[in-house]
């Protein structure tokens, strides 16, 4: 039983990283598209939003099983408060921190119509910190005797990294023009 939990935890953890990477890539494509096509954008946004919520199921399962199994010692507090785990304090902490940021990102997105756009944007941008932390957590904690899990995480890192670079490298003409005018004297 305990061993099952351990395996479920690692499988759901890897799956969470895969889904998180896909959601992030979709988000980057949404905000970074050079050409905007309404239909494509609408579909990508729909998948981005629902997959983000879907991912939560696996993440909750990952955290719950990691706490429940007794193979290594991870307590309930360290599932919420980063860097408090008795077992591999730093690496588990990275995952906890990532999950905390994710909770904030999702909460602000669900409440988006009721909070200021500015707050939403700032929190949403924390994804740029959350994702690498989580990847680091995944690669460092995956063991070498399961090359599939570690390989999957590394593949996510590469895919996400490539899209991140694509996102930073260019922009839509709307944001380009806004930035251009903003550089002029306005105060």
């Amino acid at each position: 039983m305990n061993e099952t939990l351990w395996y479920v935890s690692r499988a759901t953890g890897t799956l969470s990283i895969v889904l998180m990477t896909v959601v992030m890539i979709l988000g980057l494509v949404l905000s970074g598209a050079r050409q905007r096509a309404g239909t494509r954008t609408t579909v990508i946004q729909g998948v981005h939003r629902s997959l983000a919520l879907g991912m939560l199921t696996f993440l909750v399962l990952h955290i719950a099983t990691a706490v429940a199994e007794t193979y290594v010692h991870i307590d309930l507090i360290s599932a919420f408060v980063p860097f408090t785990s008795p077992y591999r304090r730093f690496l588990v902490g990275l995952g906890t921190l990532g999950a905390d940021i994710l909770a904030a990102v999702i909460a602000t997105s669900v409440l988006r119509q009721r909070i200021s756009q500015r707050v939403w944007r700032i929190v949403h941008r924390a994804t740029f910190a959350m994702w690498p932390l989580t990847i680091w957590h995944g690669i460092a904690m995956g063991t070498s005797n399961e090359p599939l899990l570690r390989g999957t995480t590394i593949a996510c890192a590469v895919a996400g990294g490539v899209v991140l670079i694509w996102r930073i490298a260019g922009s839509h003409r709307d944001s380009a023009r806004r930035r251009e005018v903003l550089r002029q004297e306005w105060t």
Partner: protein
Amino acid sequence: MRRDKRGEDEVVVDRVACTAHGVCSVVSNGAIELDEFGYPVPSRLTMGRRDARELVAQCPARALLIARDR
């Protein structure tokens, strides 16, 4: 302020927030047309309350607002 579930709401475009994603045109089934640069043509549009809510929620830039009752 009236707040019955049925009835109509006026959706207005926040021109500063709008970044031409074009989602409003798709979600409104073309009721909101886009100009040559991809920005919605009408600045305000009256529609059923539920449709209005849905439209507002779908805007990626949060550039659609329900008009304040006067």
